[in-house]
């Protein structure tokens, strides 16, 4: 297998990290909606901590995307 092919597979594996963060976001959103439905008056506080959690998960997805982009655009030209 050529080096470029290995790099392509590596970046695909890196982007898989997005699946984990999507699952996390889904769980968090479902719980947040549950909590707001149960206690609509606490929606402000729930929203704040919910946003904070979402930011952390979104960051993981962005890191994965960064790694994939760096693999493709920075590492790949050095080996070809």
């Amino acid at each position, binding site marked *: 297998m050529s080096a470029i092919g290995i790099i392509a597979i590596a970046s695909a594996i890196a982007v898989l990290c997005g699946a984990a963060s999507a699952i996390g976001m889904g769980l968090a959103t479902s719980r947040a909606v549950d909590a707001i439905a149960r206690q609509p008056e606490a929606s402000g506080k729930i929203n*704040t901590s919910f*946003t*904070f959690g979402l*930011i952390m998960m979104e*960051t993981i997805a*962005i*890191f994965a*995307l*960064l790694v994939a*982009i*760096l693999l493709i*655009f*920075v590492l790949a*030209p050095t080996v070809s």
Partner: protein
Amino acid sequence: MLDISIYQKPFEIFGVNVGFSVVVAWCVIAALIVLLLFVRRAAGRFQEVPHGFQNVIEFAVEGIYDFARSKVGRHADSVAPFALTFIFYIFFTTIIDLFGIPPATEDINCTFALGLCSFIMVNVEALRFKGLKGRIKALAAPVPYALPIRILTDCVAPVSMGIRLFANVFVGGVIMQLVYMVFPLVVPAILASYFNVLHIGIQVFIFAMLSLTFAGEAVEQE
């Protein structure tokens, strides 16, 4: 082929390489200072009942103070100006992308420096309001052997903030370049309003919010 590199673009002044992003940041700071002098002159004519421009300024300042109070509590007044400074600096050094100048926050040195500023701010505030003993006591809060882990978590926070801001701005730029390659017309205009404007706004807000949250955690009373 795309022009993508995480290394700083060189820029020489009198034979010394200071880096292109630093020069961009200087220009933005100069522009902001000029803007600030105008605001300062206008502030001399502010009246009891606000109207027009004064409304905008009061809305921004009161907004950030209220936001800081909801995060930090009663020590918010010394932290809120930092948050507004972060917001202005990051927003303008990044939004300059719209004028075709590479944003300063696309350089990882800049974002690490911002993270370090936030780290220093948090720790100075914590030492000021709690003292060294209180700070160590708060870090060893649930059980004493959690101290090293808590210190590690605190020290990783600025690195994570720096990489988060850098990654978001960088990835936004790369995605826009890819879109320009595939669709040269119309589509980039729609996507750019998200990736170059709204996305930046969200990241700026997140940076300020994280600084305030860490400051709130550090200065909170037992």
